[in-house]
């Protein structure tokens, strides 16, 4: 089977675009990724688009109306926060199958305003009676499990937000490009203990795209800036006690990580950087352990010792992550991989992880899916 390479990768700056629509944002990212690859829409054999709030709106076809209707197969992917990464995985399997040489994966989203999660019901509104269904509360509850088990403190969760805001200050495409001190993070509005507002992901619009090709096509176009997808895994939540009443971000992430590492034939110790799903600071803490970056119960020490900051042992979310760069739901999984590609190419500017050769991207979709991709410099 053919190896699979990323030869085009780009994203628009994350923020608010009140006068645009998701097809325009996705189309813009697609053209940027095609330019990066030196290709045009006529060269693309198949298109996958991930989006969550416009699931059912045939987003791929809408994007083709923006950038050129070539008649190729279009597949629209919706998998909550894992939508974009699921689109990339579909592109990967399409190339791997040998049926196609050039696939494009786009993630695009215009998030609704306000706090996500919860949702109405036909009968009694459950919020505030049967606990909370808000995303901050759900991820706060997961964080409290870790705190009860290992003594993790509010300050340690807050340090993750400080780190990601510091990284975001180096990323011209991040929503928040200013640092936030520990005092500021702790003093910001308490949303759902132990999560303050600055420990929650930034609610923004955005789009990102990848051009994924076969080995034959990559060689034809030149391997200089190519990045190999060494591992691609998608998992759904296996049975776990308490789930789904207690949302379980852990077992599903561990399952996807194991599959991706096995496929790539490497382990966590081989990674140079990680972009993981820091939808909330509590989630990032859990994922250090879930992805094997440290042993169970060792995550808080990693943030205390600065191992996950740019320049540390294993930098995590040097893009600023979802907390600083922003979290346009369907675009996030693609954008995480755009960030890894830039580092493996040595093109990440002043936030470059020096000598990066292997990176891992991870997303977690509520409901539940986890996707893990391992990218290697070709």
């Amino acid at each position: 089977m053919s190896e699979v390479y990323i030869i085009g990768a780009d994203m628009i700056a994350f923020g608010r675009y009140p006068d645009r629509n998701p097809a325009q944002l996705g189309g813009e990212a697609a053209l940027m990724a095609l330019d990066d690859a030196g290709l045009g829409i006529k060269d693309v054999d198949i298109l996958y688009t991930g989006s969550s709030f416009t699931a059912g709106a045939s987003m791929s076809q809408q994007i083709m109306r923006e950038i050129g209707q070539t008649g190729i197969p279009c597949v629209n992917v919706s998998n909550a926060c894992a939508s974009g990464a699921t689109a990339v995985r579909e592109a990967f399997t399409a190339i791997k199958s040998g049926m196609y040489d050039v696939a494009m994966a786009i993630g695009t989203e215009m998030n609704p305003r306000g706090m996500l999660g919860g949702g109405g019901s036909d009968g009694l509104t459950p919020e505030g009676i049967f606990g909370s269904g808000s995303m901050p509360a759900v991820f706060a509850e997961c964080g409290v499990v870790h705190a009860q088990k290992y003594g993790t403190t509010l300050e340690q969760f807050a340090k993750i937000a400080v780190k990601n805001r510091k990284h975001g200050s180096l990323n011209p495409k991040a929503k928040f490009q200013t640092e936030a001190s520990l005092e500021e993070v702790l003093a910001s509005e308490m949303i759902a203990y132990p999560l303050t507002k600055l420990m929650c992901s930034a609610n923004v619009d955005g789009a990102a795209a990848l051009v994924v090709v076969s080995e034959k096509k990559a060689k034809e176009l030149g391997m200089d800036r190519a990045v190999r997808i060494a591992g691609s895994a998608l998992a759904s939540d296996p049975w776990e006690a308490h789930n789904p009443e207690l949302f379980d971000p852990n077992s599903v992430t561990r399952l996807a990580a194991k599959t991706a590492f096995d496929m790539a034939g490497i382990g966590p110790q081989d990674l140079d950087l990680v972009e993981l799903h820091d939808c909330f600071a509590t989630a990032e803490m859990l994922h250090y352990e879930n992805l094997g970056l440290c042993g169970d119960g060792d995550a808080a020490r990693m943030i205390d010792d600065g191992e996950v900051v740019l320049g540390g042992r294993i930098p995590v979310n040097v893009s600023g992550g979802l907390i600083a760069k922003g979290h346009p739901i369907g675009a996030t999984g693609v954008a995480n991989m755009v960030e890894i590609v830039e580092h493996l190419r040595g093109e990440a500017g002043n936030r470059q992880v020096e000598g990066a050769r292997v990176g891992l991207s991870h997303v977690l979709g509520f409901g539940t899916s986890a996707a893990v991709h391992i990218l290697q410099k070709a």
Partner: protein
Amino acid sequence: MQKPGNSTICISDAGEPWIRGFRCKKCSTAADKHTLACRRCFARGSMEEYRAGNTGKLVTWSIVHRSYPGIEVPFVSAIVDLDDGLTLKANLTGCDAEDLHEAMPVTLEFDDAGGAKDKEGNSFVAYHFVAQPIAEKELSQ
């Protein structure tokens, strides 16, 4: 007329509310829904209805300070394992935030969902958890 506030609540002909759980005949796994097969062991048609008890232990929680418009805050959103296996989520009362801890004993008590009514004016039956610090003291002795 009283209506169940969620799908785990049943109301007897005499108007008495109870919590309905389902348990797998083969592996004893509990669920709050009747499913086609057991989620855990995949046995088909194995989920049997049972009447859940009203005591349990706190698994985790969050103190919610910002919710959706119109929802009164703060409140404690709690996840509880009932002693006979069912996991449920509801508000928790009767305990200061700093005293909350894993495995804290709680009871499930039915309520009127804060007086909420549907469009036809029907009231709801809901439930919340109440921390049981006295029972906990006895346990530790």
